[in-house]
């Protein structure tokens, strides 16, 4: 056996106090294409980013060609010959393609002369080598995302990288571009370079990968040659964990249809989405990251409205063109990324809690402190938000308590339809259980709840029905007593994107 190119031992990584990667050992050989598979948040991208110097491991050692290396920055990774091709291309949109290929290369002083002819010729050669037709003199922003991705790949190859990490490179590509990419990947492999391939598409993994490593809950579960594993094996290894301890303890009466969505579509995001949501019902939406779940939620809430299809509320057709419309119709949306879209980070807990009800706290257009205080202390008691004082900046609270505050804010508007997007992500187990109770109580009080979640146990234990989305399509609508983790995963994993 040859010495492995990369040998990682005992790699752990925590963000804040949450461990996302725990004690991972992995060897990567020269000239292999190695797939990393796992559910969302299983740790595969974190592991890749540690190799690329984006994150620093909390613990563990990485050896490159048998000598210990400390990959403390993306620059050092580059110098060591490790290139990461990001999911979203990182480029300079106003500069030409040719410049993007060479920008920041080593060995150039600030006053080194730029030789445009040579640079453009060289860029053209690289594009020809890749077999893609891209005008290298136009600005990067004039390119499609797929072409931008190709430029990123060209750059990684040109930098003589020994290890090339591709994080879901095929997601934005057309089938033809995917086969071009695979052709390149095979050639790189023949040259003895190593590729890490992160993808959700099992068929693609089978087509080009030699070995796979499966991650689950931050741990490496298995590493094997791809031929030894059936699709069922892979899915079982990806999800094979016991159901969470939480069991549903409420019983809501399911009433009339509250929200009805018919053939909803938005170009480039989702199409043909049809489902009903009844009063007192909790409907889960499962699927992988990028399946279009959040886009549907944002369309219903009017942030980026759908172009096609209709939305009915209480059996009346409605037109939602912005969030204000949605709020008036009794819809509330707790977004996925609370730091960006949820909290007002510079304001106090109290101001955050009352932000959605300006009319209630200011009866005559003048804010009354008494009302502010009474509304916020009511929420703090009801949802047992743990804090030092209501005047505390909200960012000082833990993630779970921030999330409670956002939910509490919406409850003040007395919404009839609640859309919760990954409400328990990054929240401790204890607070999670409280959240589940809260969602249950809300359903019992006759509210309709749409719960987007990537955690299968959460969907299975909490929901009456589970919808599954994959690549912008609704691929399953399963009632809770028929649903299993396997069924959901099968519907969530995209079908063959290309023919072999």
């Amino acid at each position, binding site marked *: 056996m040859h010495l492995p190119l990369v040998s990682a031992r005992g790699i752990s990584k925590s963000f804040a106090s949450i461990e996302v990667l725990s004690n991972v050992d992995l060897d990567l050989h020269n000239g292999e294409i190695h797939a990393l598979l796992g559910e969302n948040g299983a740790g595969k991208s974190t592991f890749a980013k540690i190799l690329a110097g984006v994150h620093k491991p909390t613990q563990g050692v990485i050896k490159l060609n048998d000598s210990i290396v400390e990959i403390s920055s*993306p*620059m050092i990774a580059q110098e060591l010959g490790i290139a990461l091709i990001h999911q979203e291309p990182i480029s*300079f949109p106003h*500069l030409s393609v040719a410049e993007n290929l060479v920008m920041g290369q080593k060995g150039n002083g*600030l*006053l080194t002369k*730029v030789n445009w002819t040579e640079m453009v010729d060289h860029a053209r050669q690289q594009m020809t080598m890749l077999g893609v037709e891209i005008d290298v003199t136009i600005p990067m*922003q004039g*390119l499609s995302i797929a072409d931008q991705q190709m430029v990123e790949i060209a750059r990684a190859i040109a930098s003589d990288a020994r290890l090339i990490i591709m994080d879901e490179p095929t997601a934005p590509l057309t089938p033809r571009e995917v086969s071009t990419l695979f052709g390149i990947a095979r050639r790189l492999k023949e040259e003895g370079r190593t590729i890490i391939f992160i993808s959700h598409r099992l068929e693609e993994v089978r087509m080009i990968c030699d070995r796979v490593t499966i991650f689950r809950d931050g741990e490496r579960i298995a590493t094997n040659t791809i031929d030894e594993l059936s699709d069922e094996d892979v899915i079982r290894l990806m999800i094979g964990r016991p159901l969470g301890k939480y069991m549903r303890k409420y019983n809501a009466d399911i009433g009339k249809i509250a929200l009805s969505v018919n053939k909803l579509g938005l170009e*480039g995001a989702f199409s043909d989405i049809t489902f009903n949501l009844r009063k007192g019902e909790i409907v889960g939406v499962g699927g992988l990251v990028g399946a279009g779940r959040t886009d549907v939620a944002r369309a219903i809430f009017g942030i980026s409205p759908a172009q096609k299809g209709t939305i009915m509320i209480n059996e009346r057709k409605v037109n939602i063109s912005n969030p204000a419309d949605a709020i008036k119709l009794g819809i509330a949306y707790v977004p996925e990324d609370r730091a960006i879209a949820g909290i007002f980070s510079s304001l106090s807990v109290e101001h955050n809690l009352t932000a959605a009800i300006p009319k209630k706290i200011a009866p005559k257009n003048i804010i009354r402190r008494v009302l502010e205080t009474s509304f916020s202390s009511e929420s703090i008691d009801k949802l047992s938000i743990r804090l030092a004082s209501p005047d505390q900046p909200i960012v000082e609270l833990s993630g779970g308590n921030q999330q409670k505050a956002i939910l509490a804010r919406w409850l003040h508007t007395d919404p009839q339809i609640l859309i919760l997007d990954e409400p328990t992500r990054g929240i401790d187990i204890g607070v999670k259980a409280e959240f589940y109770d809260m969602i249950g109580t809300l359903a019992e009080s006759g509210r309709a709840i749409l719960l987007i979640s990537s955690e299968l146990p959460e969907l299975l234990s909490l929901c009456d029905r589970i919808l599954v989305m994959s690549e912008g399509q609704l691929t399953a609508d399963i009632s809770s007593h028929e649903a299993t983790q396997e069924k959901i995963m099968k519907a969530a994993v995209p079908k063959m994107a290309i023919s072999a």
Partner: protein
Amino acid sequence: MKPILKFLSGREAGIFVMIILFCTAVGIYKPHFISSNSLRIILLLVPLIMIGAMAQMLVLVARHVDLSMGSMLGFSAMVAGLMYRDMPEIWWPIGFLVAVGTGAVLGLFNGLLVTIFNLPSIIVTLGTLNLYRGLTFIISDARQINRANIPSELKAMSQTSPIFGIPWIILMSFAIALLTFYLVRYTQLGRQIYAIGSNPNAAPLRGINVTKVTLIVFIISGALSGLAGIMYASRWGFVNPSNTGMGFEFQVIAAVVIGGVSINGGVGTVLGTFLGVILLGCVAAALPLLGIPGTTQSAIYGSVILIALLIDRSVRQRATANTKRSRA
């Protein structure tokens, strides 16, 4: 043929057309506007703004802004003026070194605040705009450097010409424009300034030393403001702590924005900036001819900035729409 077509489709052609239209319109109304004499007037109005505009272009391309230029101009001119007054026998070209050096130090101070303390450049330079102006009063005891103290050789640079009757200071401003063109087009530094402005997050990941490049940009801005300061002394023959350089940054920003430099970074050309300065010079030269009082100048510069920003916005929106279409 191809470069000509490219020029015609770009922003520069638009400004060029605007210059022609404006001059023709004024020329019809006041025929003697189209003469070599008024060309001379226009050219004498612009050298300082030209030099400032080249520097401000670099700053804006890097996604920053420098509001302190006028005060840096004033302070540097004052330092050089004080030297001339207190050391009359000094070799007069030393004034250039002193003014440019002083400006560079002031620019370095701006740059350090922006990079090391990570403060927004608009606030930093708003602060130093007042700080440097105040220091100018302090070092000069609030007194003007008079005509008698400025070396006659320096003053002569605004009148005498080495070639074609074009005065020295105009030639120098064109030389600065050419140097800037070389810098942005043919050096790594120039390209990195664009890269930083185009995507500040990607720049460090690509191995660009953002701190260093940003510092250099602010030093250039200070140094060129200093150069404009000594040229002010040459052109007007005095240095006044309160007037010299007052409002300079706004004329400069007007010219640069008209020239198509984006305030969102990453976009801007030397040719566009050059034409923006010329257009502004034409407007300034035409105002007295048309009987519009000088008191309205500020209002006109202000409106011009706003109009240019509106044009910039509509152009940008069209560009984004195009990208979106090509993605879909």
